[in-house]
């Protein structure tokens, strides 16, 4: 009996009935692609290092899955981190980690590609490799083993994962991933011919292993010449005797000193699937995700996404309308989300919304806008959208005072916020969510007090408006704070994180201060933010810590019920690595950085300039409406801002 059959039978007969939410593991969703492997040259497993319902909400998976499966000789299947109950059942029955589509073990694939969405999913990567029976360290893997790949936002600094990864893809995958898979398929074909020729020599085990090693090395060397492909094993990081990081350089000829991220120049012509998987169980984003634009030019100084997805590129309304219609037809979803980093910035947003509503209202298909600006225009859009279905409203002023909002370049004023809130309450909303960050550079008690004061003002304003309208209902304001995490490739990459004790004190202050029963306050665990900071700015030395923490049982660190902070601290100690060195060190402008050999197009001089302006609380304007701020992305990557609305400029609050 083949192992595929075995896995399926054990699942159906024994495992699925024992676990929570079995449809996490069954596959079979509408629009699933099940290919015949005999006609395929290269097989990739898209691995999401979190549970199914989180992974299935990821737009990148949805794009790449259909893109690769539309290539006649390539196949992509999915795998997610099994929930601990399933992991336990699998281990006790000896079932290796398998793909959902064909229920094959991951070792059957040529490539296992992990997407790096957040630092706290790294331990799950090791756990998934182990569960698949794949050697964790790249140097232990042979030619016949799958290539372990990674990509996604955290690839901006993948160094803590370097020893585990064979290759890392920098930037957007629509063009890069098929190119890399084709190169792997071609290499395999050529090497395959060679293997048959050399096979007659009846090589001994040692010889065979050596041949496999050199073949694998040849493949990696070849892949490293593709722009956007980073092969960590071909680079060495050096450290001074005192432990100071000195730099990362290639160790082989022909390997680029700097790997440059790849992006699609014309988003309107870029691949976007007109079909989409429809999960059975509830997933986080269970709707049509229509990507209206990529990038954001608002240049908030803490925001890594703002740096790495530049420049702003929009899709045309015609394309979007066509895609929306096809996707609703293909999925049967009752909601279309217009996604991007800031959807209200889309230059054609108003006509697009009106037309989408007109087209889909009869089928009761609603719209949603997950990311809105703090302005009245956004409320108008939200009002338009909720004609079909009522949605909640969330705004992110990020900081409590004008001074601090200027430091982070969040160009939102208090009057913007109050105007927005007034408009929201007048238009029928009775509850709002407000997002803030604590521990931002230069933050003082006044800024914290500002958060509380803003929340109270919003409550007073809302209560007054509701009373005026004769409504009996009480206002609800939810305040949520996350802790600032300095991230690579942002103007705040030089900044230390606020000490954990300070962050906890700030949370306690707000908890005490926000006593009004109409306000509820929630906050993120500062210990998780601390580890995020460590890994966001870490180097290769963190790999052993990660490995140790996983050995000691750390998985699903982003989930509070599994997060084991003490165990993490033990792992750091056992490896002789001080996490505080990474999170709390202020980095000098001339210090080498662990991600210096990875070129995301953002100029170091620009980041320094922005950092200095931040400390002076000076604003930088939106490069779409004003002059170019000189971030360097357009010339470096050979692209330019691509707007579809022509004469539209961003809303006046920024000018």
């Amino acid at each position: 009996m083949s192992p595929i059959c075995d896995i399926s039978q054990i699942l159906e007969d024994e495992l699925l009935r024992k676990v929570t939410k079995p449809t996490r593991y069954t596959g079979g969703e509408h629009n699933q692609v099940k290919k015949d492997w005999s006609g395929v040259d290269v097989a990739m497993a898209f691995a999401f290092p979190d549970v199914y319902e989180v992974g299935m909400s990821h737009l990148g998976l949805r794009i790449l899955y259909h893109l690769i499966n539309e290539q006649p000789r390539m196949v992509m299947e999915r795998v997610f981190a099994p929930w601990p109950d399933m992991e336990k059942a699998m281990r006790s029955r000896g079932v290796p980690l398998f793909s959902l589509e064909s229920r094959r073990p991951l070792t059957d694939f040529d490539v296992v590609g992990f997407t790096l969405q957040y630092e706290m999913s790294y331990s799950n990567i090791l756990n998934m490799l182990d569960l698949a029976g794949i050697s964790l360290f790249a140097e232990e893997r042979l030619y016949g083993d799958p290539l372990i790949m990674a990509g996604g936002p955290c690839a901006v600094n993948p160094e803590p994962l370097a020893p585990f990864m064979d290759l890392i893809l920098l930037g957007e995958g629509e063009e890069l991933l098929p190119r890399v898979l084709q190169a792997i398929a071609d290499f395999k074909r050529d090497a395959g011919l060679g293997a048959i020729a050399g096979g007659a020599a009846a090589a001994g085990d040692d010889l065979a292993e050596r041949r496999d090693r050199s073949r694998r090395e040849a493949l990696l060397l070849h892949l490293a010449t593709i722009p956007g492909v980073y092969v960590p094993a071909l680079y060495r990081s050096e450290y001074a005797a005192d432990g100071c990081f000195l730099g990362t350089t290639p160790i082989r000829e022909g390997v680029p000193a700097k790997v440059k991220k790849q992006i699609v120049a014309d988003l309107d012509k870029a691949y976007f699937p007109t079909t989409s998987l429809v999960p059975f169980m509830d997933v986080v984003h269970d709707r049509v995700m229509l990507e209206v634009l990529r990038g954001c030019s608002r240049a908030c100084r803490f925001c890594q996404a703002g740096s790495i997805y530049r420049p702003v590129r929009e899709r045309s309304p015609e394309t979007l309308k066509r895609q929306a219609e096809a996707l609703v037809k293909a999925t049967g979803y009752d909601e279309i989300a217009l996604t991007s980093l800031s959807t209200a910035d889309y230059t054609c947003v108003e006509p697009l919304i009106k037309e989408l509503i007109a087209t889909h209202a009869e089928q009761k298909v609603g719209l949603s806008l997950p990311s809105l600006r703090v302005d009245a225009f956004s409320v108008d859009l939200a009002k338009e959208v909720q004609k079909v279905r009522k949605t909640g409203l969330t705004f992110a002023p990020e900081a409590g005072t004008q001074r601090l909002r200027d430091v982070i370049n969040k160009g939102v004023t208090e009057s913007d916020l109050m105007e927005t809130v007034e408009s929201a309450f007048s238009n029928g909303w009775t509850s709002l969510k407000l997002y803030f960050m604590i521990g931002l550079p230069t933050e003082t008690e006044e800024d914290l007090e500002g958060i509380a004061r803003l929340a109270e003002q919003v409550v007073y304003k809302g209560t007054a408006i509701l009373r005026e309208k004769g409504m009996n209902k009480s206002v609800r304001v939810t305040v949520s704070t996350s802790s600032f995490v300095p991230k690579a490739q942002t103007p705040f990459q030089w900044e230390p994180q606020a000490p954990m004790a300070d962050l906890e004190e700030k949370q306690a202050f707000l908890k005490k201060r926000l006593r009004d029963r109409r306000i509820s306050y929630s906050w993120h665990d500062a210990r998780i933010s601390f580890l995020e900071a460590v890994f966001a700015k870490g180097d290769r030395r963190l790999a052993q810590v990660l490995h140790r923490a996983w050995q000691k049982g750390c998985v699903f660190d982003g989930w509070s019920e599994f997060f084991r902070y003490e165990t993490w601290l033990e792992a750091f100690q056992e490896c002789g690595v001080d996490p505080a060195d990474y999170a709390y060190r202020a980095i000098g402008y001339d210090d080498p950085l662990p991600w210096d050999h990875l070129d995301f197009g953002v100029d170091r001089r620009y980041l320094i300039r922005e950092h200095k302006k931040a400390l002076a609380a000076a604003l930088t304007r939106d490069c779409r409406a004003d002059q170019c701020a000189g971030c360097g992305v357009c010339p470096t990557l050979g692209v330019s801002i691509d707007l579809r609305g022509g004469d539209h400029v961003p809303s006046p609050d920024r000018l």
Partner: protein
Amino acid sequence: MFRVRIAFSKQDPVRWLSHLDTQKAFERAMRRAAIPLAFSEGFNPHPKIAFASALAVGIVSFGEYVDVDLAAAVDPAEVRERLQKAMPEGFGIHGVKAVPPGTQALMAVVNRAQYRLRVPLQEPLDEAVIAAALSRSLAEASWLVEREGKKGVSTRDIRPGLFQLTGSRTDDALILEMLVQTGSEGNVRPEEVLEAVCRYGDLSVDRERVRILRLGLFVAQGERLLTPMDVL
């Protein structure tokens, strides 16, 4: 308003769908099939879809039924054809009929469920042993089972809710077929019947690995068993 009754089956891999997931799968398939759903009023309109009975996760069924309200009259044959094409793998659409106005709700009329269980044997048993075990257990006047509810564990007698029971053997498994009560008067679960047979009949089988098949749901009218499609 126009209502249709749909007869369907649920097999691998969708036997693992919960009742709620099944409801959602129907709603989405109807939309893909461009069959106009009728919606409730209010801020969050939802389609009016009512199943005969919830099917527990993991059970394969050949006889499930659902009533769906449509916004316009559609030929039932066309609903069947379009919906079958739009359903996820594992769902079969076996019949669609228009529901005349004034018909009793599906949930209110269905009162019998027929199951077939396949349970691996732990020791070799012949047909005679199985027959003896069945008659021994059927001779008991009451079958007490414990059920965990919201208010803690309660004890119920399921014997009055069992109407037919037969047993046989294939290969290395016990096959049980049963007709039990379901619906508003109370449900008897097939695993509970198995448990009782094992206990009162003194049978030893691998209950952990039972496979359950729901053969159908019925409307008992006196001695007659009708399907929900027959009563239209």
